[in-house]
């Protein structure tokens, strides 16, 4: 069923009786060519591109809960390609290009909204670091602008320019960045995958891998054994848990990242703004809520909830940066479990087990990567070779010393 304004109009006239399920609820088949473990954004995107772009069939996505129940459904919806390192920037720019055509590709409005992102700087040293980054973005064709204080002030006059502990000196802007409706992305890929024959199997938890002489044969699930030639795991947040079932230890810790939304407000903040001297970033959803966040809590956790100190820290940062949000009220705070990797960058790679592939380690930034991650993982699964923009995301980069460490924080996940 093709979605369009006309279809909505036509359905309205006949009492919305013609709408069909966005996807089927199939029972698992005994075997598939490709099993994607994890029905979050990355898993659904992988299945979609595998079917649609790489023409593969006999594909299933196994989701232990409901589709989109992982971090794709609990993030702050920012999309951007403003990275520094050669291992990252082309990948995220590839993702940005996919975002730009996503809705037409999927025939589903995920509300990709390129209202821009501004990373503020407060010292000359930060400005120099942003210049290096901005130039890297230019090399990748991502586009960037270095804004001076006055230019910035004209653009976002409501920031605290005159009474700040850490004065704002300017910002690095990417106009093409913005936000997307997170659930819509998951649903769009799910619907797209389903329409290309992918079986989306909910309430199906993987409980083990069946391995045979170094090769994966299939997976044990809460709905029985399912055989497969290739198994791709995309369960960021739970990567360690799932891969442990295959006997692997990963360069990953699971941490909780909190996010926040206020009550709905009339338009307040145009794009995405990040504070360079405190831990705070913010945007406003189309519904009107200010969506914001800050640091991870900093301890290993699978609890999907955080604690007060970070809540206070984030609110302090917000108030220091833009005290005009003070009389807005925080409506809801939540926590997601993220795969914090040892260098702050993801892993998209084969494993030492033949037929078993891993996509994880997305830290707090996996949402923006969803299209490229799915595409690159599908590429790897379908062709056996890494996608050209994802070559740096090998798992052996740690042992070999080729880390992709944007922050230069080293092997300490809670500093990335």
């Amino acid at each position: 069923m093709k979605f369009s304004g006309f279809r909505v109009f036509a359905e309205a006239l006949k009492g919305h009786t013609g709408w069909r399920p966005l996807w089927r609820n199939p029972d698992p088949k005994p075997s598939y060519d490709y099993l994607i473990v994890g029905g979050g954004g990355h898993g659904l995107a992988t299945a979609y591109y595998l079917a649609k772009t790489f023409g593969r069939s006999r594909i299933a996505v196994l989701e232990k809960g409901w589709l989109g129940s992982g971090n794709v459904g609990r993030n702050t919806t920012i999309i951007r390609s403003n990275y520094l390192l050669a291992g990252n920037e082309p990948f995220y720019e590839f993702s940005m290009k996919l975002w730009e055509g996503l809705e037409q590709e999927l025939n589903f409005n995920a509300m990709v909204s390129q209202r821009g992102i501004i990373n503020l700087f407060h010292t000359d040293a930060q400005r120099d670091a942003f210049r290096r980054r901005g130039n890297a973005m230019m090399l990748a064709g991502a586009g960037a602008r270095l804004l001076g204080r006055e230019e910035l002030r004209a653009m976002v006059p409501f920031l605290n320019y005159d009474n700040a502990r850490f004065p704002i000196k300017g910002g690095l802007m990417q106009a093409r960045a913005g936000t997307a409706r997170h659930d819509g992305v998951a649903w769009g890929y799910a619907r797209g995958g389903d329409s290309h024959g992918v079986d989306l199997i909910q309430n199906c938890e993987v409980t083990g891998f069946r391995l045979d002489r170094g090769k994966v044969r299939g997976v044990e699930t809460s709905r029985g054994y399912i055989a497969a030639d290739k198994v791709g795991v995309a369960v960021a947040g739970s990567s360690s848990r799932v891969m442990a079932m295959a006997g692997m230890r990963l360069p990953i810790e699971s941490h909780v990242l909190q996010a926040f939304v206020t009550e709905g407000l009339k338009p307040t903040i145009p794009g995405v703004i990040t504070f360079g001297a405190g831990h705070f970033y913010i945007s406003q959803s189309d519904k009107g809520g200010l969506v914001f966040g800050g640091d991870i809590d900093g301890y290993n956790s699978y609890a999907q909830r955080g604690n007060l100190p970070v809540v206070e820290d984030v609110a302090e940062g917000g108030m220091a940066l833009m005290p005009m949000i003070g009389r807005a009220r925080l409506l809801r705070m939540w926590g997601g479990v993220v795969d914090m990797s040892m260098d702050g960058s993801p892993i998209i790679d084969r494993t030492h087990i033949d037929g078993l592939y891993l996509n994880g380690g997305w830290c707090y930034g996996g949402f923006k990567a969803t299209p490229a991650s799915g595409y690159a993982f599908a590429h790897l699964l379908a062709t056996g070779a890494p996608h050209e923009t994802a070559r740096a995301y090998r798992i052996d980069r740690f042992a070999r010393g080729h880390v992709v460490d944007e922050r230069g924080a080293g092997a300490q996940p809670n500093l990335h």
Partner: protein
Amino acid sequence: MTRLSGGLIDRSQTLNFSFDGKRYQGNPGDTLASALLANGVRLMGRSFKYHRPRGLLSVGSEEPNALVELRSGARREPNTRATTVELFDGLEARSQNRWPSLGFDALAVNDLLSPFFTAGFYYKTFMWPKAFWEKLYEPAIRRAAGLGRLSMQADPDVYDKGFLHCDLLVIGGGVAGLAAALTAARSGARVILADEDFRLGGRLLSETRTLDGAQASDWISALEAEFESLPNIRVMRRTTVFGVYDHGIYGAVEGVSDHLPEANGRVRQTLWRITAKRAVLAAGATERPIAFADNDRPGIMLAGAMRAYANRWAACPSETIAVFTNNDDGHRTARDLAAKDVKIAAVIDVRPDAKARGDYRLITGGMVAGSRGRLGLKSIEVQANGRSEWIECGALGVSGGWNPNVHLFSHHRGRPVWNEPLQAFLPGENGPLGLIPAGAAAGHFSTGDALRSGARAAQRAMGELGIAASLPDLPRAEEADYTVAPVFHVPGKKRAWVDFQNDVTVKDIKLAHAENMRPVEHLKRYTTLGMATDQGKTSNVTGLAVMAELTGRSIPETGTTIFRPPYTPVTLSVLGGGDTGRHFRPRRLTPTHHWAEAQGAVFVEVGQWMRAQYFPRAGETHWRQSVDREARAVRGAVGLCDVTTLGKIDVQGADAGEFLNRLYCNMMATLKVGRVRYGLMLREDGFAYDDGTCARLAEDHCVVTTTTANAGLVYRNMEFARQCLWPELDVQLISTTNAWAQIAVAGPKSRALLARIVDGFDLSNEAFPFMACAELTVCDGLRARLFRISFSGELAYEIAVPARYGHALIERLMELGADLGATPYGTEALGVLRIEKGHAAGPELNGQATALMVGLGSMVSQKKDSVGAVMSRREGLAGDRRRLVGLRPVDPAGKVVSGSHLFAEGAPWKFDTDQGWITSACYSPHVGSMIGLGFLENGDERLGEVIVAANPLEGESARLRVVPAHFVDPEGARLRE
């Protein structure tokens, strides 16, 4: 409509207030909602999507409809529930999300278009043409969306935060909470009783029930008096416990002066972090409506709310009311209002066997199937026994049963459990440790039950803490059973609202079902059910029930959504709690700060430190003039710079040398007493992360310095090594960063200057050579430490004195050095000097560089192990061919810009041809042009080559020559002179 009789309002005083510019009067004890109601105002808001006219639904913080903008100017507070605003004199409120007026709202056209605006319609359209989304569709959607407006001005009020500890926190001051607090307080335990209302009593305040045959308010007053007399209980009114965190930590917000016309500089709200050994959750219950066609008109409200307005506030939305109920509670409303001479048009009870509790018309087995009245209810359609009739009434009280307020109990993601007789979710087994539910929150709905359960909960909590608590004599109270029929909505073709604010109707839930958005989270996210400012307090259970009906599953099989903090929305200002302007973070000042200030220095933030950036002199109009002059003074005479901010760590113990040997990658154990050595630290992953000096004051005593930025991190890592890796070593550590004022005295005349202050100390090159250190006295007896180290490449020293003397010392040095040209210099000149000398600093040691890259590869000792040594030999690090080089513009007038990327001449500017970047750049007065440092692929083999520095970000590029990374005195002769 005038006031009814009775109520807990002070009729002796009048408060003036305005709503949408119109003036009204109320009384102390009123909320904005009750006062509006008493003034005959039913229309108070508009819904989010369809802009439907709305009035009060509820009486508390769960209110979805009556949201107003409170106060004005910078204090404007959008989305404020009229039901929770304590009336004060001069209160100003306006309706919101309507244009041009509340009575006539142009966007109400959305209601006519509602057939198109179904759940999730926006996912299906607005996709063509592509460019229209950002330009047309989205801006229109954003303008229409949102509720109230922020003032866009900084919040002028002040907030603070605090910390409380107690044995028992009682959340909720209703019957159960009061009984719990009493039980625990009498046992001598430390108790905090918090309630969001400005009056204790909870639901008791809204009922006509008696306790021990007397008015409930008598019992409450007696309790309040007793609490007042006990030192171990703190009663916190106007305090909302909004979240439960780990290990008995609760977040609470106290409204300190919100109920006053002006805070007048006083704290408006306080954020309390309460650490409680145990807590009793006595948060009560929230009534839920029954969905029926057009059930959202002003005048249709919860039956319990209608009763509360009548009993507590002597207000009623109409002279004629009706009640629609599926349980006995609705009948109480009819009975109480009848007693206040309100006309009861009918009570419609869905239960065929319902009995009347008073003299009113009862329609059993009936349903309300529709309503009329554009801006306020005029009549309702009642269907019963196959017949339909329209009954005139100005207000309808609806009771669909009560939902225990289990929210806090579920903040740790424990799911509540469905209770079939109560038709409600109750706290489950897996709630937060130490939190005990009681009263209506635990499903104890009768007053007697609630009293007993509160007292028992406190007794249990005390028992767990080993405190003996006996149950107090509790008053006799009503013990009525609660029975409810499982009716959640009235079937029909028209729209029946489930989530009032977000305009989610039964039809929307049906559509979600048809589209396979059936898991409860899909339902919520697709329809926005429960995502409004009330977070589904009045809508979630109804929504679940409808979905359960459609799927043929039970409600518990259908699931629950996750309860997340905060329980009610919390002002961001108070979460930010306190100083967020210039005092957002502490400021650290150097010992010479006040002196530098008096010299007119310009300061710069370096982490938390404020450092002098440069010292402009009269006639200098550009910072570069000052910086050039300061740098020249160091190269030509002597300069003074406060370097106190560098971390200083005192390392003592028999194994101090061995300990440091394991931390620095270079050899440190062999350092002789009286000598200083430059040291480089690696992380265990092999990358360089900090550098500094190590001075050996005695065999068992070293003082090491760190960079300013890493002082805390290095100390932490040293403690880790000391306690966790090598506890067998005899080492003691303590930071002394703040204790010593350390001043760099640099330049060819530095020795001459220092000679004028040292007390009989031989500064000659022989006696005190490069990299020497000593403890001595200066200026006739002041204890000092002297280090002959140089960051500038010149003959230089750093002298340290107790911090309190830093100010006097620099004054003295300036005074004594006047004839030598002594010049203070700031961080800018410091940067110029170190770039000229090619010293790596923050931009080079950024955590991504190896010792090899910064030209210090030979420092990594192969003769011993140290942190990071093994990992530094990995292929990726050892094989990294980028090297730190110096860069000079081919055109001497050309620019060198840090952050530019480096390319071979003629190469395209792409990632795969990218050969490095410029880390640091400055104008060098010594060289006479701009210079830079940068990492360049094979840089050490490309000296003399001309490369291109590209800065496409700012549309610039420059041709630069690769030179060695030191522009001054490459042999290092000067610093050894």
